[in-house]
């Protein structure tokens, strides 16, 4: 029949395997920081969400307080509506909290940053954040920069052209 050594080794093997699964679950994944089911949902409308994705982080002062639950398009306001699931241990953001979409680093992922306002009433489940700032789209930024640089150039040119005439 099965010898004692064999049984012990099988026990070691199974224990190791389960320990590895446990280690993967606890150490490598966001299980410890993620409480999926609980928390409450607030929404925010953005003109442009850029590269924001579902499950992108929601932060306040750089601290992760929730995740993007889903991203929809609202045909009444012609805006993207982002549902944010805030963890239940982060309650009490003022009603006039602002939401912006930022990029972490130059090429990093995009996230929603909340900036608490001063109101005394708090955001609760289903509320909508009124103050939002869209994601920066690189092409637009570069376009604006080029435009303003060109405008500045013509302004200085006309100034120098007008300058000597006055003297």
């Amino acid at each position, binding site marked *: 029949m099965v010898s004692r050594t064999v049984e012990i080794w099988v026990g070691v093997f199974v224990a190791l395997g389960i320990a590895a699964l446990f280690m*993967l679950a606890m150490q490598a994944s966001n299980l410890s920081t993620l409480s999926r089911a609980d928390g409450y949902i607030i929404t925010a409308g953005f003109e442009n969400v850029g590269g924001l994705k579902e499950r992108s982080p929601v932060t306040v002062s750089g601290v992760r307080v929730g995740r993007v639950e889903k991203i929809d398009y609202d045909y009444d306001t012609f805006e993207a509506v982002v549902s944010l699931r805030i963890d239940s241990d982060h309650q009490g953001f003022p009603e006039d909290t602002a939401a912006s979409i930022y990029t972490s680093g130059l090429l990093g992922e995009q996230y929603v940053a909340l900036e608490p306002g001063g109101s005394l009433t708090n955001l609760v489940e289903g509320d909508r954040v009124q103050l939002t700032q869209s994601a920066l789209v690189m092409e637009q930024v570069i376009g604006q920069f080029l435009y303003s640089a060109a405008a500045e150039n013509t302004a200085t040119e006309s100034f120098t052209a007008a300058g000597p005439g006055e003297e």
Partner: protein
Amino acid sequence: MLDALQGLGRATLTFFERLGRGHLLLAQILMKLPGLLLRPGLVIAQLYSVGVLTLVITLVSGMFVGMVLGLQGYNTLVDFGAEESLGVVVALSLVRELGPVVAALLFAGRAGSALTAEIGLMKATEQLSGMEMMAVDPVERVLAPRFLAAFLSMPLLAALFSAVGIYGGYLVGVGLLGVDDGAFWGQMQSAVDLNDDIYNGVIKSIVFGFVAGWIALFEGYDAIPTAEGVSRATTRTVVHTALAVLGLDFVLTALMFGD
């Protein structure tokens, strides 16, 4: 012309016959599985030869794969100043792909070939017929415990492979190349999802264990009972398992991470 057609027809029929026999054997094995609850000793003995003896090669390979991932990932990421993401790269590639797939390939080479050779030799030396003569069902006594052992040990081996690999990547990245310790684990934890990544990896390894066990047992059971037949069956086990695992991996990846 007719000969060529006949050859094609025969090849097709043989293929489908083998496929059919394979599925019938699988059905038989699955039906015998509940009976194993009465005799767990059989499964434990097989868990030892299928799982425990595959442990060393899995752990060593996992360690080296993780270390290589750490080195290569670092060299690429450092150009973008994103070497803190090394933990994400190592963990995601191991948990999603390399863990289940490479562990399954190693499993086919180490355990699958041994299963096929063992059963093929049992058949060649008429031990299986002898069992039937004694009214012992060889499927229940020989095949079912081995199948269950393969099915159970594959997810554990894949998890061990991934865990050791992540640790290998940590050793190289943090210990050797100086990636920040906290960023390595922190970024990994924020990017790796329990459901999307780890559970899907476990599901993959369960599917691979099922397929690897099935192919190995069928090839052994269906081997031509000669020395040459057993050697061919063993080769086929490794080749077919590798192909099946890689093909299934693509299908599973498309299903899991496709959208």
